[in-house]
């Protein structure tokens, strides 16, 4: 039982780290530009497809990752320049429609380019296999590598946001957008940087997860909504909120699916517990969101309601 708990907790942290990578960009885009971007999940999917392609072409995960990152920059810049840039001053309704259109385009384009059958990406060799954790328990090295990589990026972001000039502008922008323009900063360039940064982080998340998931067209969708939940719970514009929100959502989602039915078995008979548990488990994160929002409408670290 304890072993299962530790295992699932680690899985939760690993999912949380990935969610954070995706949510970090999204929360900045929401917070600073007040733009809703439904196409953010698409970037995660594109990251996975890019590394699948590059890894297959070069025969190496590492070369694949190395090529994916600059490609992600290009993807981010192009989307920003062609579509997003024109949406900043628009109503939320326009933003919803245009980015919804982007989702349809991207999903279909991916199908046209890569086909509908899922792709797989080889695990980098030095990270294959498992390490003993405690007692008979082993854990895949690659998942640990994802956690470490994610935490490293989180730390880097934290330093950037809190100790650099760009970070200072980002924080100011998340609180009050007018301040930033009043500081004489080229707001268009700042927005382009933020959007591209977010795009790269989302692509990175997709690339990192590719070796342990099958890469298919639906993968951006489920993640997008979870990311929204993370951003809403953490508070729009808050990196710290996104980090804690991501871990919270991922751990509740992972542990709830496994331990929910077990807990229910103590009050219901096994078959009913299994049934109820299966229905409730995927709803847990949304219930969590509802409870948090009921107490704090602006999220845990949100400034604006």
């Amino acid at each position, binding site marked *: 039982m304890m072993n299962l708990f530790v295992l699932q907790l680690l899985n939760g942290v690993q999912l949380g780290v990935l969610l954070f990578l995706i949510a970090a960009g999204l929360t900045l885009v929401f917070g600073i530009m007040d733009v809703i971007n439904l196409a953010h999940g698409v970037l995660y999917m594109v990251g996975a497809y890019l590394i699948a392609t590059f890894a297959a072409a070069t025969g190496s995960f590492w070369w694949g990752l190395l090529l994916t990152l600059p490609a992600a920059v290009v993807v981010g810049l192009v989307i920003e320049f062609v579509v997003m840039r024109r949406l900043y001053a628009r109503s939320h309704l326009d933003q919803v429609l245009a980015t919804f259109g982007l989702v349809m385009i991207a999903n279909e384009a991916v199908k046209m380019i890569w086909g509908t059958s899922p792709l797989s990406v080889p695990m980098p060799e030095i990270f294959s296999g498992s390490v003993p954790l405690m007692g008979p328990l082993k854990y895949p090295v690659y998942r640990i590598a994802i956690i470490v990589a994610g935490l490293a990026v989180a730390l880097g972001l934290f330093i950037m946001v809190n100790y650099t000039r760009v970070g200072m502008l980002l924080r100011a922008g998340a609180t009050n957008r007018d301040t930033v323009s009043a500081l004489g900063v080229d707001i268009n360039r700042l927005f382009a940087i933020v959007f591209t940064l977010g795009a790269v982080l989302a692509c990175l998340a997709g690339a990192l997860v590719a070796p342990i998931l099958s890469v298919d067209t639906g993968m951006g969708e489920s993640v997008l909504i979870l990311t929204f939940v993370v951003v*809403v719970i953490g508070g729009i514009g808050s990196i710290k909120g996104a980090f804690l929100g991501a871990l919270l959502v991922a751990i509740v989602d992972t542990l709830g699916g496994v331990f929910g039915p077990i807990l229910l078995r103590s009050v219901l008979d096994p078959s009913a517990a299994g049934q109820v548990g299966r*229905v409730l488990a995927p709803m847990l994160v*949304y219930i969590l969101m509802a409870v948090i929002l009921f107490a704090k409408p602006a999220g845990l670290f949100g400034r604006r309601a």
Partner: protein
Amino acid sequence: MTYMTASATHPDRPVLSGRVKAALVLFILFALMPPLASALNDPFYVLIGTRILAYAIAAMALDLILGYGAMVSFGHAAYLGFGAYAVAILQSYGVNDLILQILFAVAISAIFAVVTGAISLRTRGVYFIMITLAFGQMAFFFFISFSAYGGDDGVALAQRSTVLGMDLLGTDYGLYYVSLALLIALFALCHRIVGSRFGRVLTGIRENPTRIEAIGFSPFRYQLIAFVISGCITAIAGVVLANQAQFVSPAFMSWHKSGELIVMVVLGGVGNLAGPIAGAVAALLLEEWLDALSEHWKLYFGIFLVLMVLFSPHGITGLLKKMGIVRGQQ
């Protein structure tokens, strides 16, 4: 004291508003469609037509809050699903009556809308959109894992609903005309609501919430009631849709469906009830047409959406703003 004799209503106001005229034209066209389809020997159109009618009901319901209440709900497909599953669930208990199914669908939707609306309406703007989307997904996942009714795969319906024991929906034509009758009745209902005291408060909140509070209204309860009404009407569309497809699955509730509903409303024009009906017709016909042209119709539909937003001078809402139909948000 000239003002006492001045007409209370606008002297030049036409007997029928533009909204009603447009709707009447649409209803007449709808009524003429089936005979035309059978004359063309293509009765399949009647089933497509029923699907259009169902989405027209849903889009009109969404317009009630999106257009009149300025609430961009991205979770409205959930109510389509509630309506559809109400049919499946009652049918599994041997209850086939359309009216009972509608009542059940409305009851579930009202409960869900009160709870999620009360939480969502504590926020606005981007938050509201994301939270309604998340709650929609919650309902979606509930039915995905609801294995008693087929879970992910959905469940086929043994038969169509009956009305007070009569097999009115037995033929495709019967189903079509009952659906059209529902659309007309619900349009009349929505039309009355937006022209009522309640509707005036709701529209006022859209125009200027601060002013509405300054004359003594608390916006929250009006918005919540509108949210609930809209959800309940959308559920009726779901009941129609289940009968049309004779099949129910979580696919009715995916967030893409919520997005498509918003597209229909905007395509037809926000905030006039008749527009979204036309929008549903246009969007679904466009979909059918692109689908016939290419298996990748979603690509073209997406491109159409992006272009529509980017190249109408100030966006669609900007265009409508110019026409004085909607006000910009924040």
